[in-house]
């Protein structure tokens, strides 16, 4: 008992995570609302007669924001260790690299369509 009275840490340790989870709850609600709103904006955007490059750029930016927001907050990556970010980031970097490399290698100018058709 004396140990508990002298040292208030056990109480602080118990309430700390609870306060943190309560704070996270508000973050989750705000993020969910933002994600829903962005999805609505994306749907409307493709029907608006803006310049295609502008629409594509905005869509990619919004998609990237949703992607990063879910990873950062819903998946707790900003609250977790850097090692986990590196573990996932490595896979993401390789996937992005593969996408870019394939995009260049398989551009219409580099592909022999006649050979494919014969095959």
């Amino acid at each position: 008992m004396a140990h508990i009275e002298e040292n208030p840490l056990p109480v602080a340790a118990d309430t700390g995570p609870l306060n943190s989870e309560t704070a996270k709850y508000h973050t989750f609600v705000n993020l969910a609302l933002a994600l829903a709103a962005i999805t609505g904006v994306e749907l409307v955007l493709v029907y608006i007669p803006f310049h295609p490059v502008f629409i594509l750029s905005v869509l990619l930016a919004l998609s990237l924001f949703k992607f990063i927001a879910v990873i950062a907050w819903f998946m707790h990556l900003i609250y977790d260790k850097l090692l986990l970010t590196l573990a996932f980031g490595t896979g993401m970097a390789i996937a992005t690299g593969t996408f870019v490399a394939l995009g260049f290698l398989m551009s219409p100018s580099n592909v022999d369509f006649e050979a494919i058709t014969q095959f």
Partner: protein
Amino acid sequence: MSNTADHADSHSSLVVDNKKLLMWLFLGSDCMFFGTLISTHLIYRKLYPDSFEPTTLFSLELTSFSTFILLMSSFLMALAVSAMHKGQLKSFRRNTLGVIFFGLIFLGCQVYEFAHFVHEDLTLQTNTFGSTFYMMTGTHGVHVAIGIFWLICMYFYSHTGKMDAHESAVDVEVAGLYWHFVDIVWIVIFTAVYLVEFIPEI
């Protein structure tokens, strides 16, 4: 004893839970898998732009609804994980049921969409668009189905009384990571496969 406890606390603040690390590594590898599937689809769309006109088949309203449902399921999953960290088993069960329900709605929408496409003669064998589209979205659907099965198992396990709210928090968090990953993959597919098709002259 105090020194031992302090040492344990400082140790736990430095180490990473093995289950979480393994799941993040798996998700990193799954990123490469989906990256390849999405790349293949987009490259074939670029190589054979006239092979198929998907805007006549795609229903953006339905797909946007599916996206919204999956995003909200992610929100509920985050609440379920949070509830587990707080030791609130009832809240965890309620939110998990919500995730399962929303996941089933998403799968239902996907089955409806596939049935509609097949009815309109777009199958795996029809053309390169059909092959890559079904392969990519089908693989994602299988991931969703596995996630639902996992959460159903977790829900029933929580009723056995063997689940300790605090010790099982990591297990729930790992399941949550998987579910959120399924969500972020769909965020990419929704934009890169569905929305982009509706932009004129792209």
